[in-house]
């Protein structure tokens, strides 16, 4: 029997539904456009599932509360937009350093500053990567349609638990507020990763920061039988502060490598017609919808064009992009910012000079016509 449900939902509602599907037990947030419907939906649905919802006094408090709750063994999430995401940065670094699983949704709007609260943008890609201070690795995912918002949101929880790390979901205003059909999968249809709990018995020393052979760090819930320290300072295997150069060196390498060395396992992308593509569009999020549209349109008139839709933005799949773009003459990055992913693409392909940017930054969704116009110029066909 098929128990999946078909619904017509806003992207924000899909994100909330998917979080519950993934096992969300604790949400803390603060109202901000255009992410508020995630908090609204969860304030209604989470208590019915026995979960906890709290509206905190600001975004900093929200992310701190979910990190605290995560330590007690709960799956946790917060949701915000640009200004709130900026406020959360210090605590994102804390979750990275202390290796506490959590999911942070950033529904992007126009920036900088208060910017364009009700308009679309993809301006926070680099902030998701480098917003918190210091060296670190991060996982950031995105999606271009509601079905993918569902699977990507579930995936965020799975990655957070697998790698003991904060995972950022970079959605955008268009997806968040648009209504689209989505099939809610049956329970069990998408596999869920549950927290890896230590097998060290009571009375035996438990080292919270001593990785197993596979690199994973089993956790012990606060309130359980193992009492240990958690700190944002560099720390030893006990979780106690240390500035011993050997320990600090090992820890920063562990934090970066546990993600960067597994880029191939973490990253996902969709590919269209790459076999014969002389022109490859690279896009993600709402921009990818217009890119797919114009790709199909141009193919219909005989152009050898293909596309890569990025579903993982960080870690950036450099090796894969280089390989897939090796034969292309025109690599066209379509994004709604002044150029963020385009630099990442230039840095990894064989011919950076063959990489072009098509963007739109006025608060409106980039259109297929916007892309077509620039494609003609790039290919020397005039305006």
């Amino acid at each position, binding site marked *: 029997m098929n128990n999946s449900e078909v619904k017509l939902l806003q992207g924000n509602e899909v994100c909330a539904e998917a979080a519950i599907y993934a096992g969300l*037990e*604790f949400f*803390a947030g603060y109202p901000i456009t255009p992410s508020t419907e995630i908090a609204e939906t969860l304030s209604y649905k989470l*208590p*019915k*599932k*026995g979960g*906890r919802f*709290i509206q*905190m*006094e*600001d975004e*900093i*408090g*929200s992310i*701190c*509360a*979910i*990190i*605290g*709750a*995560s*330590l*007690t063994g*709960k799956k*946790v999430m917060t949701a915000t937009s640009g200004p709130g995401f900026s406020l959360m940065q*210090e*605590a994102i670094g*804390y979750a990275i350093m202390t290796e506490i699983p959590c999911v942070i949704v950033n529904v992007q709007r126009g920036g900088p500053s208060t910017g364009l609260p009700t308009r679309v943008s993809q301006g926070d890609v680099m902030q998701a990567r480098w917003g918190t201070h210091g060296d670190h690795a991060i996982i950031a995912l995105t999606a271009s349609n509601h079905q993918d918002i569902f699977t990507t949101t579930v995936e965020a929880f799975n990655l957070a638990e697998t790698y003991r790390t904060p995972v950022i979901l970079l959605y955008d205003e268009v997806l968040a507020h648009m209504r689209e059909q989505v099939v809610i999968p049956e329970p069990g249809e998408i596999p869920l990763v549950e927290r890896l709990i230590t097998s060290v018995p009571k009375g035996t020393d438990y080292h919270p920061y001593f990785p197993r052979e596979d690199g994973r760090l089993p956790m012990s819930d*606060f*309130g*359980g*039988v193992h*009492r*240990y*320290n*958690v*700190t*944002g*300072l560099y720390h030893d295997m*006990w979780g*106690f*502060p240390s500035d011993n150069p050997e320990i600090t060196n090992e820890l920063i390498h562990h934090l970066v490598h546990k993600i960067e060395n597994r880029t191939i396992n973490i990253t996902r992308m969709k590919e269209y017609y790459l076999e014969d593509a002389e022109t490859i569009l690279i896009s993600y999020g709402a921009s990818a919808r217009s890119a797919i549209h114009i790709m199909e349109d141009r193919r219909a008139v005989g152009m050898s064009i293909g596309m890569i839709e990025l579903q993982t933005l960080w870690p950036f799949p450099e090796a894969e992009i280089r390989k897939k773009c090796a034969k292309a003459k025109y690599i066209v990055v379509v994004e709604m910012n002044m150029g963020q992913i385009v630099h990442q693409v230039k840095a990894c392909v064989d011919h950076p000079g063959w990489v072009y940017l098509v963007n739109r930054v006025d608060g409106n969704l980039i259109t297929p016509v916007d892309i077509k116009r620039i494609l003609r110029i790039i290919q020397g066909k005039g305006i």
Partner: protein
Amino acid sequence: MSITTYLRKRFMPHIWCAGCGNGIVLNSLLRAVEKLNLDRNNIVMVSGIGCSSRMQGYVDFHTLHTIHGRALAFATGVKLARPELDIIVPMGDGDALAIGGNHFIHAARRNINLTAIILNNRIYGMTGGQYSPMTGMDKFATTAPYGTIVPSFDTVELAKAAGASFVARSTVYHVLHLTNLLEKAIKHKGFTVVEVLTQCPTYYGRKNGMPEAPEMMQWFKDHTFQRGTEPKKIEGEMIEIGLFVEEQREEYCERYEKSLQKVGKV
């Protein structure tokens, strides 16, 4: 059972200066925990950043050393996720009342069952002696070479106004009084604030004519009076100590549980 069993001796010696009052507060706190005979597995200590916020490392509880000013926000998450845990939140005056002031008043407003201990040494010690929101008028600090020009908060009045259901003040001179208050505070159900005046001879004392710990402690003796008694008529400020608020009011997590029952879990 000796209170030293509550200590993680492995991580000592501690980082505090000679003459620092933080150890006295820790001593009183552990005696209160011992009197209450609490299960260590049930205690979570959440701290922020600063000298006093390093206390958590030395105690054998579940311990969470967080970021500057946000200890109460982390503690709110732990408490709401696991309401049965006893949560103790030591903070410095800058941590609790400057950078963390917003979380402080909102935790009080919720009346969430956390024990907030504000170790007030009237200075930022960890960074080398800058003035704090509790330094007060006409005092000196490394960022106030010409004297401070802003009054301090009255922590007790602030906590009361924000809605804390237990508010007390003591000093490191009055250790038995302090232990007593901490014991009551931990037992109390609701948001609990205990302000403890403590000395920083290294920075506050040295900058303000009291470079030795004993004279600072003597000052706590001379310049305080018990609530309900007549203050001595001496030069300088007189600070009231004691228990100011102790009210039984419904606590946040209890209210949350009730509202869950109302919606009916599925």
